[in-house]
Structures are given as C-alpha cells and as structure tokens.
C-alpha cells in the first residue's frame, strides 16, 4: 500500500534532471528575447515622436486655419466687401440722370413757349409798320402843317426795326438753346439706358462673385473642421502608438518574471537533497512549467499585438492624412486652376469703377451743357433787355403823337386816332416783353438747378474713395487667401511627409516576427519539459505546493499575469488572494479603461502646508477630470 502511494522517486528524478539540464539553455534566450530589442524600440520611439511632432504641427495649422476661415478674418473681410459693394451700388444709383432728363424736357417746353411768345411780336411789328405808313400819308395830306409828323413816322419805323432785330436774335439763340438741350437730352437718354443695364449686370455679377467667395469660405470652413477632427484622430492614434511602444517594457517584465521563476526552479532542482521532497518539488516545477507556457504565449501575443497595433495605428494615421489631403485638394482655392474668384471679383469691381467714372464724366458733360445754356440764356436776356423798354418808348411816341395832333387841331384828328393806336401798342409791347422775360427767368432758374444737380451728382471723388476701400479689402482678402493657400500647401506638404515617414517606418518593422517566433519556440521548450511530468500527474497533483504557488502569485506585478495564473492553476492555489479580483474583474488597457477621478479622489499631501491652501481652496470649484482608468491621483 505504501509502495503504491510513495513518490515515484526514481522515475521523477530523470525528469527533474532533464529540466535542470535544459533550463540553463532556455534562460539566456528568455533573458535576451525582448531585452535585445530595446534599441529597435528606441529607434521606433525617436521616429514616432518625429511623426508626432509633424502630426501636432498638422493639428495646430488646421486649428489656426479653422479660426481664420470660420468666423474669423476671412468672414469679416467678405462681409466688408459685400458692404462696400452695396455702398457702391447706392452711390451709382444716386448719379442717375433721370432728374436731369426731366429738367431738360421741361426746358425744351419753355423754349417752345418762348418761341411762341416771340412769334407774337410779329403782328406788333406789322402794326407799327402800318402806323408808320399811315402817319407818313397823313403827314403828306396835311402838307406844311403836318411836317412834324414825319419825325413821328421815323420813330415808329425805328422802333419796329429794333423789335425785328431783337426778336430775330432771340429766335436764333432760342434755336441754339433748343439744339443744346436736344443734344444733351439725347446723350442722357442713351447714358441712362446703359447705366441702368450696368447697374443691373455688373452688380449682379459682383454680388454673385461675393456669394461664390462666401460659399468657398464655408466649404473651406467645413474642410478645416474635418481637418481639425482628422488631426484629433491622428493625435488619438498617436496616443495608441506611443502606448504600444511601451509594450516592450511590459512584455520584457513578463518574460523576466518567467525567467526568474524558471531560474528558481532550476536552482531548487539542483539544490534538492537526496532525501528531499522530490514529489513536492516535482509538483511545483510541473505547475511552474504549466504556468510559464501560457505566460510566454501571452507575452508573445501582447508583444505581437502591440507591434501590429503600432503599425496599424500608424497606417491609420497615414490613411487619415491621405483622406484629408484629398479633401484639401478638392476645396483649396489655389489648387483650382484658372482665374480665382478673387481675381474675377477684382475685375468686376474694376468694371464697376469704370462704369462709375463714365457716369461721372457724363454728369460733367451735362454740367457743361447747363453752363452753355446759362450763357445762351444770358445772351437772350440781354436781347430781351433791349426790347424791355419798347413799351415805354411806344408810349412816349404815342404821347408825342397826341401832343402834335392837339397842336394841329381838327386837321390832326386822324393823327389823334393814330396816337391812340400807338398807345394801345405800348400796352401790348409791355405784355409781350413781360412774357418773354418771365419765360427766360424760368429757363434760367431751371438751368441753374440742373447745373447744381449736375455738380452735386459729380461722384468723381466718391469713386476714388470707393475704389480705395475696395482695393484695401481686396488686398486684405488676397492676403488672407494667400495665407490660407500657404497653410493648405503647408498642410498638404506635412501630410505627404507624414505619409512617407509612416510608410517607410511601417515597411521596415519586421523584428516582431522574429521575437514572436522565438517566444513560440521558448513556449514549446517549456511545454516539452512540462510533458515529461505527464506520467506522474496523479502523484504530483497530490503533492502540490499551494503556498509556494501563492507566493508566486503575489510576486506578479501585472494583472494580466495574475489572470493567467488563476486561469491555469485555479483559485485553489491562492484561495486567500482570489478576492483580489472581484466581480469587476481586471481590465487591461483597452479603450474602455477610462475612469473619472473626481476631486474626492485627489489628495495632495497629508499635512497642510502654505503651498497647499490655494490649490485646495480652488479645488471645490474645479470640474472633475478624466485621466483614464489607469491613472489615479491620491
């Protein structure tokens, strides 16, 4: 009975010896498999931070662009351009010649009235001639007593000639005036037609260009939002990349722990006394070997996955960057080829300015026409002035005629009738000249008003000011556009460099395959040794060393190691420690490992000290900070 339960000392001995013989060959390989790759990781680290720096520049450039094209300077400049355009349109509309046209049409009407008034002098002159002839006949009939009437006839004749002469001159100038007005009116009508079309077409084009500019700005704003989002994803991926690099240290430690326990196993086998507990040692060595194989497998998987994730995250950054580059190319102003929208707007504004200058020149021309009219009116007025006293002169002649008729007595009664007629003419002459003077006054007043209107509509100086403001805002827009173009070019360049750097780096990483292969070989070696214990299973199970295994469990530094230990050997090996891992389990460092540490979790220093007071005073008002599940501040 005792022989059946005794440890199979003689058979287990060779198995343990084989372990002691093989482990020294495994241990150096374990020691070097990860540790020797440190230089590879350091090189990766240096390159990764070069890429990270590029990614940060990419991100900051995108952020700067976002503020520029979002609601920043570009939007303000476009709004300013729109305002200047609206102002220009208002000024342009103000120089409309409609009022001048109406004024000149009115002048035309007055000139016609003047012509009609002048025509009414003709019967008056005719009557004067008849009176002259009648006077001469009567003078001849009276003979010597009527000789004084010849002078009277001469006066009447002279008066008729004066009226003839002046009305002819007034008529000539009236025609001249009419021609001036008609010509100006014709030009104005054409100008108004062109101007209205210009106002419609040019400003429509200009506003359309500005709208296009704004559309491009909003497209750019959408782009930079994408860029900022993309660059945040890049930064996040870089975080994973940098975390992956640290798996060199993590897996190194895990393999070191394997190395340590196997070295201990070798040492204990070699130190086993002749009468030592071979079964107990065998059970412990078997359990140790059984545990190390999955730990090595886990280390291999962690290492390989870390490098693969490193490569995958970098490639995701490259893909992301390439996608953003494509978006940039689709939206960028500078990459569109052909004339830019700003160039078109600049040309349209130049056309508007030309049109405004043409209008202004036309207004100046109208002003000159008005001045010419004023001169003509002045001349006409002087002629009117020449006949203004005709009424008084006729009246004097009539008085003279009455006196002479009275001297002549009954013989001069006929002359009295003539004198009466002359008197009547004087009244008519006064009426006619009064009418002409009134008409000329009205024409003169109207010409003055039109002249003033023309002067006030001269926008030559305004056009200069408007153009200056347009130039300033266009220069500003061009500068912002150029800056945006440079930033976009810079971003494209950074993106291209990033992609090349990443592709070059990821294509050069192969060491993880060798490490993986070596760890798998080591795992096989450990499994091979463990298989030597298979025939002794029941005996070794009976001789297990829970205390030693528990002690080993306490030596692990990582939850991942503890999980493997418990999964392989079960909780029975460390019943007291099982509570370490509650129902919440242990989360490794995936994306879900974020935990909020509120202010209650933060304890800075045990004893109050002067430096602490302000920080704690402000602490109650601080929002909770999310550092992640793997971070805790005491």
């Amino acid at each position, binding site marked *: 009975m005792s022989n059946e339960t005794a440890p199979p000392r003689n058979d287990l001995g060779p198995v343990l010896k084989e372990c002691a013989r093989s482990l020294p060959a495994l241990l150096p390989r374990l020691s070097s498999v990860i540790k020797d790759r440190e230089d590879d990781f350091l090189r990766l680290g240096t390159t990764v931070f070069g890429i990270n720096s590029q990614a940060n520049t990419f991100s900051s450039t995108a952020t700067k662009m976002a503020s520029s094209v979002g609601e920043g300077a570009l939007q303000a400049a476009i709004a300013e351009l729109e305002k200047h355009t609206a102002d220009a349109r208002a000024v342009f509309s103000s120089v409309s010649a409609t009022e001048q046209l109406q004024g000149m049409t009115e002048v035309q009407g007055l000139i016609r009235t003047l012509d009609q008034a002048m025509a009414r002098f003709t019967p008056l002159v005719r009557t004067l001639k008849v009176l002259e002839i009648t006077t001469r006949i009567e003078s001849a009939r009276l003979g010597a007593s009527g000789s004084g009437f010849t002078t009277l006839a001469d006066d009447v004749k002279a008066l008729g000639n004066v009226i003839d002469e002046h009305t002819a001159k007034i008529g000539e100038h009236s025609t001249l005036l009419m021609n001036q007005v008609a010509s100006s009116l014709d030009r104005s009508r054409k100008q108004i037609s062109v101007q209205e079309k210009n106002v419609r077409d040019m400003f429509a084009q200009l506003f359309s260009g500005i709208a296009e500019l704004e559309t491009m700005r909003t497209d750019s704003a959408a782009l930079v939002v994408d860029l900022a989002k993309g660059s945040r994803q890049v*930064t996040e991926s870089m975080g994973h990349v940098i975390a992956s690099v640290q798996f060199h240290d993590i897996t190194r430690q895990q393999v070191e722990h394997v190395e340590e326990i196997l070295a201990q196993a070798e040492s204990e086998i070699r130190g086993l006394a002749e009468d030592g507990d071979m079964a107990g040692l065998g059970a412990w060595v078997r359990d140790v070997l059984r545990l190390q194989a999955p730990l090595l497998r886990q280390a291999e998987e962690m290492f390989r996955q870390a490098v693969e994730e490193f490569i995958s995250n970098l490639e995701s950054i490259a893909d992301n960057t390439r996608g953003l580059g494509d978006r940039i190319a689709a939206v960028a102003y500078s990459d569109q080829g052909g004339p830019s929208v700003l160039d078109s707007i600049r040309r349209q504004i130049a056309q508007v300015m030309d049109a405004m200058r043409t209008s202004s020149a036309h207004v100046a021309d109208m002003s000159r026409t008005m001045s010419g009219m004023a001169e003509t009116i002045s001349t006409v007025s002087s002629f009117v002035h020449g006949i203004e006293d005709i009424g008084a002169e006729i009246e004097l002649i009539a008085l003279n005629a009455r006196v002479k008729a009275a001297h002549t007595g009954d013989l001069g009664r006929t002359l009295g009738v003539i004198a009466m007629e002359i008197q009547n003419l004087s009244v008519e002459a006064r009426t006619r000249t009064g009418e002409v003077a009134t008409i000329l006054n009205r024409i003169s007043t109207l010409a003055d008003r039109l002249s003033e209107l023309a002067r006030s509509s001269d926008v030559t100086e305004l056009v200069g000011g408007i153009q200056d403001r347009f130039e300033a805002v266009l220069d500003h827009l061009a500068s912002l556009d150029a800056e945006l173009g440079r930033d976009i070019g810079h971003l494209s360049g950074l993106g291209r460099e990033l992609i090349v750097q990443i592709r070059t780096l990821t294509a050069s990483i192969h060491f993880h395959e060798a490490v993986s292969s070596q760890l798998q070989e080591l795992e096989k070696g450990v499994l091979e040794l463990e298989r030597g214990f298979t025939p002794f299973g029941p005996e070794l199970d009976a001789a297990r060393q829970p205390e030693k295994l528990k002690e080993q469990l306490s030596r692990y530094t990582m939850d991942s190691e503890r999980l493997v230990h418990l999964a392989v050997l079960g909780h029975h090996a460390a019943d007291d420690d099982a509570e370490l891992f509650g129902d919440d389990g242990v989360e490794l460092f995936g994306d879900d490992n974020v935990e909020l540490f509120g202010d209650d979790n933060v304890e800075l220093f045990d004893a109050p000290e002067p430096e602490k007071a302000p920080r704690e005073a402000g602490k109650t008002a601080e929002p909770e900070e999310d550092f992640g599940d793997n971070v805790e501040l005491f």
Partner: protein
Amino acid sequence: MSKTIMTVDDSASVRQMVSLTLKDAGYSVIEACDGKDALAKLTGPVDMIVTDLNMPNMDGIEFIRNVRAKAQYKFVPIVMLTTESQADKKEQGKAAGATGWIVKPFKPDQLLAVAKKLLR
C-alpha cells in the same frame, strides 16, 4: 521658465516615451535609470517626479521615501508609472508619499493632463 520633471525608470524605452512626451509639451526633463541614480541626480529644482516601481538598485517605494525625507522635495508631486496595479501596492506607494499612480502603458494626453493638474 519651463517646469522640470524627473523620469525614473529602468526601461530606456519608457524613459524615452515619458521624456519625449513631456519635452514636446514644453517641460524640461531629467532622466534616471533607477531610484539610486535618481537620488544622485536630485540636486536642483524639480517640480514633479514620475517614477517606476520595480527597478534594480533602489525601487520606487524606497526612492519616494528618500525623496520625502529631503526637505527641498517634501512637497514635490511624485507619480508612480508602473505595470503594477494591485491595490495594496498602491497603498504602499501612497503611504510612502506618492501623489498619484499611472498604470503602464500611458497615453501622452494622460501624462500631460496629470502634469498639468499637479503643476498648476
């Protein structure tokens, strides 16, 4: 003048990650490969220390005790950066004078957020 942070770790690659992360954010960094090396380099002003737990020559807990024994560094924030995540180890670290605990691997944003909080 930039703040100075000391990183203590026997892994050169971890020191490199910590150092480059902090330098990129504008901090000055002093590197040490274990607690003993760190104590030797702790001669001037240091605003924060990030240290590993398990290191040869002098581990993180002993290092913290030594740092806290120095009047000049009594209140300097010390954050442990380690693969260790057991509660009792954290308690040991806290008892020794650690200000915070980060389980490896860290992401740059996490380390920078902790530095920002502790150094403001």
